[in-house]
């Protein structure tokens, strides 16, 4: 038991964000007398925040290098415009339109990456310029007005739900989306298998393993929370398409950052660029690809946002960059680079999302919401720095 307590103490900061997110959800559940946790609201919460979460994944890589990308909000507007021109004006097949839009995002990212990596213009300046340039291009492209609507299939990217070949089942007198439940069960099995494998490996290599009791508790908690959300979705219309996309993105980028050589190189460059360079890492190319990737994900966010609104407007994506950056820092990224995780950024993004959503349900005005979000960001980063300086002085 004492061993378990010591472990919890040591790793508390690691799970601090998750605990904070859950506390926030419970807090708002009480304040909104349960509205926050209703199936329809949770589904909306995911739909409303999906594009910020997509941006946060790309932004995480930027913050790992010790930089940010201020242009993503404008890129969202520009790519939305590109998609609209392709589909609405030219009547292109939505699949081709999406592919071309994503490629356009890569070009935007590569453009910025080029100046940052090879000409060595500070990322802040390049992306500040990009913020103006892309917003301007979006206005030019859309001639200052909105363009829509989009084909049905395109809209379903952001607002659709996975189909149910089983036609739904009824449990305890309530209709449920069967495929969603099946996916949930499979996901839990996969998570559990991964956990068991990694624990076996850790024991084999003599790592600092979690005490067994806590490990069991953690997994029960993990499965319960996954199943909770799955059941909530199943009670409404099932799993949204966008959640599948998000899940895949998180999985892919988590894998890249944790398990692959390019991921390790990003952390090394962010931790100490000079050392990384002198160790033979092509630091310029790392920066180039990080920003190219940000362009790709900004394009994806732009597509999702346009699909959700069912219209492309030159004002789209205003201030998105700040939400994405805030998500990363609330999720534990270090301002100086080298520290941060994909999962952390997602949790940070959800934290902001729950905060917005909860306050909206309570009827807090947009004015106060802004101010409160500002305080939360400041508090989160200050707390992070404080706890770090405390652990260092020990």
């Amino acid at each position, binding site marked *: 038991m004492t061993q378990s307590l010591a472990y919890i103490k040591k790793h508390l900061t690691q799970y601090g964000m998750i605990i904070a997110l859950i506390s926030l959800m419970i807090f708002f559940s009480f304040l909104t007398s349960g509205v926050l946790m209703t199936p329809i609201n949770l589904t909306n919460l995911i739909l409303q925040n999906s594009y910020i979460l997509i941006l946060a994944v790309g932004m995480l890589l930027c913050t790992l290098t010790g930089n940010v990308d201020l242009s993503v909000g404008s890129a969202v507007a520009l790519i939305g415009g590109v998609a609209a021109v392709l589909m609405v004006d030219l009547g292109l097949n939505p699949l081709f339109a999406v592919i071309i839009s994503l490629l356009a995002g890569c070009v935007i990212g590569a453009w910025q990456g080029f100046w940052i990596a090879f000409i060595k213009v500070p990322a802040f300046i390049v992306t500040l310029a990009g913020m103006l340039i892309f917003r301007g291009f979006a206005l030019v492209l859309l001639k200052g007005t909105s363009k829509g609507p989009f084909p049905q299939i395109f809209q379903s990217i952001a607002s659709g739900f996975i189909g149910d070949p089983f036609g739904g089942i009824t449990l305890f007198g309530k209709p449920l989306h069967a495929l969603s439940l099946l996916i949930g069960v499979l996901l839990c099995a996969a998570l559990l298998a991964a956990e068991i494998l990694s624990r076996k*490996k850790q024991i*084999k*290599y003599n*790592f*600092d393993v979690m005490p067994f009791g806590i490990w069991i508790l953690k997994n029960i908690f993990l499965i319960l929370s996954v199943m909770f959300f799955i059941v909530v979705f199943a009670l409404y219309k099932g799993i949204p398409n966008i959640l599948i996309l998000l899940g895949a993105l998180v999985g892919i980028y988590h894998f890249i950052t944790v*398990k*692959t*050589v*390019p991921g*390790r*190189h990003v*952390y*090394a460059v962010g*931790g*100490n660029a*000079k*050392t*990384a*360079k*002198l*160790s*033979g*890492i*092509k630091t310029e190319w790392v920066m180039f690809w990080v920003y190219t990737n940000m362009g790709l994900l900004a394009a994806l966010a732009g597509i999702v946002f346009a699909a959700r609104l069912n219209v492309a407007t030159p004002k789209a994506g205003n201030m998105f960059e700040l939400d994405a950056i805030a998500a990363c820092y609330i999720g534990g990224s270090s301002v100086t680079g*080298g*520290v941060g995780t994909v999962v952390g950024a997602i949790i940070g993004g959800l934290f902001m999302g729950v905060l917005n959503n909860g306050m909206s349900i309570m009827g807090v005005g947009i004015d106060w919401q802004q101010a409160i979000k500002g305080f939360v960001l400041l508090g989160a980063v200050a707390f992070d720095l404080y706890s770090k300086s405390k652990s260092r002085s*020990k």
Partner: protein
Amino acid sequence: MSEKNILLEMKDITKEFPGVKALSGVSFKVKKKEIHALVGENGAGKSTLMKILSGVYPYGAYSGDIIFDGALCRFSDIKQSERAGIAIIHQELALSPYLSIAENIFLGHERAKAGMIDWDKTRADALVYMQKLGLNENPDTPVNKLGVGKQQIVEIAKALAKDVKLLILDEPTAALNERDSQNLLKLLTELKNNHGISCVLITHKLNEVSAVADTVTVLRDGRTIETIEVNKAGISEEKIIKSMVGREITDMFPKRSHKPGDTVFEVKNWTVFHPENPQRKILDDINFSVRAGEVVGFAGLMGSGRTELATSLFGKYYGRNISGKTFMEGKEVNLDTIPKAIKHGLAYVTEDRKEYGLVLMQNIKNNTSMANLKAVADYGVINESGETKTAKEFKEKMNIKAPSIYQTAENLSGGNQQKVVLSKWIFAAPKVLILDEPTRGIDVGAKYEIYTIINELARGGMACVLISSEMPEVIGMSDRIYVMSEGRISAELDAKTATQEKIISHMI
């Protein structure tokens, strides 16, 4: 020793960090008008003791008493200890680089009237202190235009301006060349004789101790081992080393059994210009070669171009308009980028391991695999068990003292950090290993281990280039010695017949 003569007495100082006793019952006395050397291996507690004295660790964070100038002191921060007359000069200088000498001297207590700086008085007063210290510079010169040696003197002037009674210097000569070191030590003696300022000198260089110190206190494992009066006892360096490490080190350098083989790496007509000032030649027509299993020493003053030679060869990291040819095992090779240099078998251990050698926030494992990550990855996916195994093997082989390979590099001592950097490069399996000041700021015991590793590598056939400012190290470790002076190779000497005098005569 009558009590009157005592400037500082630290009694029974104990300081605990969670899980470690950094100091246990340390006593330390400094007399008025003396230079007191504080020596000990890294981790012996020297810095901790000085941090307590200067108030970095406030009263209450330690137990024991500090009596300074006859009064019991309970400093709660650095400001208070400065007011009492204690100034500490750290290894990393605390100067503002773009401000002038005069501005830096009075930083924090500006010569001002009603909030407006009195520039005439600032300059005039600065000149007084500068003259005292023999610093012949314009007080308006920005300090980043000065060499490290002179910057250090500005630091001392800053301390003098605060009416210092006790000056603490943490390895002041670590970054200085021979000449500047001599000047600095002379200056400390003058301050003592002419101005009655006592000085605590933390150092790893024992020749400095015997040159200027009146008293030596040796710390080991957080305890005072002994305090020796230098002039009376006629102490030998061996004696100090013995009490520092707690065992006898019969030889400073381990025995060597390697035999040089064929030439591995050859550089011809290597010429390099300054990166910002393309008119300025930094290296002029350098020619040298290294054989397999050979340790080649590079001696020279700071600024003679040794580091620039290494970094320009290593993927043209330094310099511009580089011309010349490089040959690896007889074949001409292109070393234009660092990945190419590594691919062709070159490795470079930098002189500044914290800034250029390690990602401090990452653990031993990640630092070890950094230069050769491909070797533990399949199709770009890191093979975790392979990487772990490699890091563990190196930790074992190099005797890296850490609880596990998941320890972050910033929490390691200097010697262990250097072993991690060496692991990183040995794992990259180079043919030629360039070591730039590999034992700077490393304690005696760890130095010996590093020397053993270098010899071991040479015995395995690696060609080693050893750049060092410590002459005994160059002579003791090398087979052959190149001496550099002002961007040229001024001599090539056989290490067997080389002497310090001979090397110095070619350095200037």
